[in-house]
């Protein structure tokens, strides 16, 4: 479970995130929706301990992201915006490295790697060096290594960015599967249809602030609009970021 309370952060004079509050419960998919530059990635980066909040707090399974960073890191699987792989290592070696950094070893680790290879349908590339992989293949490796320790909270920054239609569909199936496993899934997207199709809860962010929160259904009711698209436009106050 992820609890965010009045989180703020600025870079120089730019207020990137202001007073953001929301809760992402276990067994649900929460989408952070907003146009480019709205502060989604910055919010996520504070949740996964990379950036320190200027004020406010965030807790993951009860652990504070600033004071118990290591405990938080044990409980999250992150697909960051930066998702570079080690090109001279094979898929399996890339995943194994992260597993070992999570104190996993031996058959437990190898079985988990095999399970992920099957789950993400990447047995064919398991023992190839990742140099020259397609965007979709690279993404799969990045996701597999992020989830190797079977975390209860999954944070995905724009997981479908740059993917073709088939890969996007597979990615969405995968996110739904994570929910079935009872995980708390939080992902960011600037694509409204995607959020509408997947999310149990939507947090709309614009200019670093939360402008609306709720289920897709309740958002339509809050804004008095028929379609989610209109509700989105009403919530962020402009049409930017619509696709």
């Amino acid at each position, binding site marked *: 479970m992820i609890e965010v309370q009045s989180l703020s952060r600025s870079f120089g004079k730019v207020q990137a995130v202001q007073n953001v509050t929301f809760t992402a419960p276990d067994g649900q998919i929460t989408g952070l929706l907003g146009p480019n530059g709205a502060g989604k990635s910055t919010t996520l980066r504070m949740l996964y301990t990379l950036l320190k909040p200027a004020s406010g707090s965030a807790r993951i399974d009860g652990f504070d992201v600033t004071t118990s960073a290591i405990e938080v*890191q044990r409980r999250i699987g992150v697909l960051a915006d930066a998702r570079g792989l080690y090109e001279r290592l094979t898929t399996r070696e890339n995943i194994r*490295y992260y597993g070992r*950094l999570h104190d996993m070893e031996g058959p437990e680790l190898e079985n988990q790697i095999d399970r992920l290879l099957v789950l993400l349908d990447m047995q064919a590339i398991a023992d190839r060096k990742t140099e020259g992989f397609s965007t979709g293949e690279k993404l799969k490796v990045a996701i597999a290594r992020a989830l190797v320790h079977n975390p209860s909270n999954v944070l995905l920054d724009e997981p479908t960015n740059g993917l073709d239609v088939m890969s996007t569909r597979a990615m969405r199936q995968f996110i739904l599967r994570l929910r079935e496993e009872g995980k708390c899934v939080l992902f960011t997207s600037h694509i409204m249809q995607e959020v509408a199709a997947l999310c149990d809860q939507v947090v709309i962010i614009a200019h670093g602030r939360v402008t609306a929160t709720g289920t897709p259904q309740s958002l339509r009711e809050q804004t008095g609009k028929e379609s989610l698209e209109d509700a989105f436009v009403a919530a962020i106050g402009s049409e930017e970021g619509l696709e």
Partner: protein
Amino acid sequence: MMKKIWVIVEKELLDNLRDYRSWTTGLFWALFGPLMLGGMIMILGNTVRDKVYGGLHLPVQGAENAPNLITFLETHEMIIDPAPVDPQAAVIAGDVNVVLIIPPAYPEEFSAGKTASLQLVFDSTRQTAMVDIQRIKLLLEEYSRYMGSLRLAMRGVSPEVIRVVQVQEQDTATPQSQALVFLSMLPYFIIFAIFNGASPIITDATAGERERRSLEPLLLNPLPRGWVATGKMISAMPFAVINLLITLFGFGAIFEFLPIEEMLGMKIGLSLGSLTAIFLICLPVVFLACAIQTVIASFTRTTKEAGTYLPFVGLIPSLPGLALAFLPVKPALWMMLIPTFGQQILINQFLRSEPISASNVVVSTIVTLVMSALITLAAIRFYEHERIVIG
């Protein structure tokens, strides 16, 4: 803790070993020193041997004016050649090192018992010619003294009257001390090789990782960032040690297989024992080289930027060694307080088979290790800062 640091080390070793282009470049630098020194010794050895023992060709203009002098020169192993048409131009062009001009007035002046003038054309900035020039000057002076004393004797005066003092030279340097200058560059090559062995690995592990955008996800794993920095630094150490070994074996092989004694007439102390001692003395420098370069790689943004700094980083600590070649110093305790400088002085002492003070070794080792540890802490600080990821 050790276990997780080892996970980092193991991965970096595997990753970097597969990047064989980078580390083979590093190896080249390890061989660079021995090859260059070997080449220089070969060239120098040949010149020294030729110059000191062989006959010297001396172009002479107007040889017919002084048959007596020419005979004297020839009996002193000079081979008299006809002079080029324009002696000055030939010396400037480097066709000949030196030309002796005997003016037409010479026979007359000589017969009259006056001071007859000769001209010697040479370029004093041409180092390689100095051996020739000195030899000819000495011969001419010897001839002058010889003839002078004959003249005095003919006039019934003892030649000792004009010889007020006689200087007997005692040069404590070996005749081939020039070779020692080159030998003094050895510490420079050794330190440089250590830095160059570590630099491709460190560049790749920190700046490279950032550039490939794999550093951010790596730092989200549950371990203190200091361990990541430490692991990356340690992973470069074997490469630096291997470079050090290759360089030392290279120098060892050169002194073993090149006929140095025959060429330079001196024995160079590079036994297996002194090689081992030099290796041990340099181990703290391995730590220092890895620490310094990790700090630099952690605040540079790209491998390209790191690549512009790191070669200089290796150069600066090795420079004192180069200076040592030309400004020999007496080892003092304060010099041991400067990392790399102390080691270079100690290496030099080993090469010259001088007695080594144990306290100098201990001080230089401890200071270098403490300094390296402090620099490592600085690298860890850089890693802990947000800036390492967001730039």
